[in-house]
């Protein structure tokens, strides 16, 4: 049913987007908690930096990644020498680019839901003998779960559709970094591949719809659990 190119593009896309979200979930929740619950110097600056990928042209992000993490980049040289890791032109590099582009969406959604959790409930839990971690695990996170789910799926969808930063930093290498949007772009550039391009386009829409529906369903389930779960 699916052609070799399509299957490969979907597999790479899921791998890239999945690891992009997987690696940013915990830091994203931690950062969201910091922004929602703590006051500190430079909070506004951090908030601004965090939102930068949302407003910058993706190509700029890709270019910044390239000059810092490229083989000649200051961070890239160091990574190469110490660990033998080279990120540009690999699927891990694509995941990094996708993760950075998706990060603001994840943090925003989680932060909003954390801010909606009543600190009075957390104070009540602490008077009942719960330390900070137990409060986080049993009160704060469960009550913020719908937002965490929404943020995760939103970030996943954003990483899945990443084009500019990925193209710039990880390039368009078949079997390595050619995700769905990149494969579609290649087909559009090739004469006589209009049908294949249309199929890929339809596939993209289907995957995006699935992700959205899944997010809605999970978030609704989580909200119901908040009001129904047994201790």
């Amino acid at each position, binding site marked *: 049913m699916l052609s070799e190119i399509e299957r490969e593009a979907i597999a790479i896309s899921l791998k890239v987007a999945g690891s992009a979200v997987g690696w940013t979930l915990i830091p994203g929740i931690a950062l969201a908690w910091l922004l929602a619950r703590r006051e500190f110097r430079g909070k506004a600056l951090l908030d601004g930096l965090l939102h930068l990928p949302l407003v910058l042209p993706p190509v700029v992000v890709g270019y910044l990644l390239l000059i810092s993490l490229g083989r000649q980049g200051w961070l890239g040289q160091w990574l190469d020498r110490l660990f033998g890791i080279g990120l540009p032109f690999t699927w891990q590099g694509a995941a990094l680019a996708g993760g950075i582009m998706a990060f603001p969406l994840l943090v925003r959604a989680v932060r909003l839901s954390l801010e909606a959790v009543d600190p009075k409930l957390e104070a009540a839990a602490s008077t009942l003998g719960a330390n900070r971690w137990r409060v986080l695990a049993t009160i704060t996170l469960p009550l913020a779960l719908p937002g965490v789910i929404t943020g995760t799926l939103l970030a996943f969808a954003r990483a899945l559709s990443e084009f500019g930063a990925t193209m710039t930093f990880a390039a368009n290498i078949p079997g390595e970094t050619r995700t769905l949007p990149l494969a579609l772009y290649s087909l559009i550039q090739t004469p006589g591949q209009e049908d294949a391009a249309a199929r890929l386009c339809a596939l993209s829409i289907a995957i995006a719809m699935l992700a959205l529906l899944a997010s809605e369903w999970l978030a609704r389930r989580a909200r119901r659990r908040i*009001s129904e779960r*047994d201790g």
Partner: protein
Amino acid sequence: MTRLHKTDSHGLALDVTKRLGGFALSAELTFPATGVTALFGASGSGKTSLLRLIAGLDGPDDGSIRLAGETLVDTRRGVFVAPHRRRLGVVFQEARLFPHYRVRGNLTYGMPRAKRKRDTVKGPGFDAVVSLLGIEALLDRLPGTLSGGEARRVAIGRALLSEPRMLLLDEPLSGLDAPRKRELLRYIGQLAKRIDIPILFVSHVPEELTAIADHLVVLEHGRVRAHGRLEELLLRFDLTEQLGGFDAASLLEAHLVGHDERYALSTLRLADGQTLAVPRVDAPLGARLRLRVPIRDVALALLPPERTSFRNQLAATVARIDATPGGTGIGNDEVAENSAVEVGLRLGDQPLRARLTRKSLDELGLKEGMSVIALVRSVAFAEVMV
């Protein structure tokens, strides 16, 4: 201000100052290790701020708090025990039940692990608390479906099951209707009798504290105005305004000795043998009751009046007369304030206060030591003590 007893190593001893915006709290106090202590004052007097300092939800600017000899806070020595290590059960004004746990889950949230497996490792067990508070039927419900009174009871149970060394109740009755209030007050009263945990009860409603408190701390503008045993403070004319003003009342203790079903009345016997008829009290014969007698509902006569609707005529002795006007809290009306006098009576050993007009006082020619008849129009609140 009353001097505190620094040697009391069982109760709670605090000496703190805290500035909150334009408001300054400065309190030096000891609470006894048993019974119910009411922390009383108008809103804005610093009651809740003080409770938050004790619970560890805020830290004082300066000072120390010690419970049973253990230092919870000492700013000079840099000690601050986190709230979750203080083992103080707090019941907040707004119940604060966890919406994603059922009542059962809320109740067990603060229970020590050992206790969850076995009943009564220490203190009352799950079943005992549940039945004491009458919440058996609520265990599988979600907090969102509970009424205000039910939610408060669950919150009290939750705090109690965390094996607290002291129970802090912050206006637990606010926002409830009168029957719920009375019911919850009865539960708290029973709690205090059955469970050996000191209770600190924050309130600005005189009826609540006269119903269950043993000790009283009166806060005013962030400072301790008075503290001591409830009965003693209720006799202080200078506190009348704080303790209810126009609604001020004295307390009488009595035993239930009979019911008159036809008129729905109950007969109570005071310690000196005199009896009172009150609207039917739902309690077993022999029960000890605490009565609240509003001082404006006590009239005085020199001879027993005949043909009167006053059911209750009690022989009493005039113990003292407070002729200084003002502070009776009748209102801002200067004339009204100047026209009222307070008379302290004795019924055997029990004190009773009456308020009358200065004119009546002069016409009756009342003097300290005179025998009079106290006419009690109503008994506002009867609390079953045992």
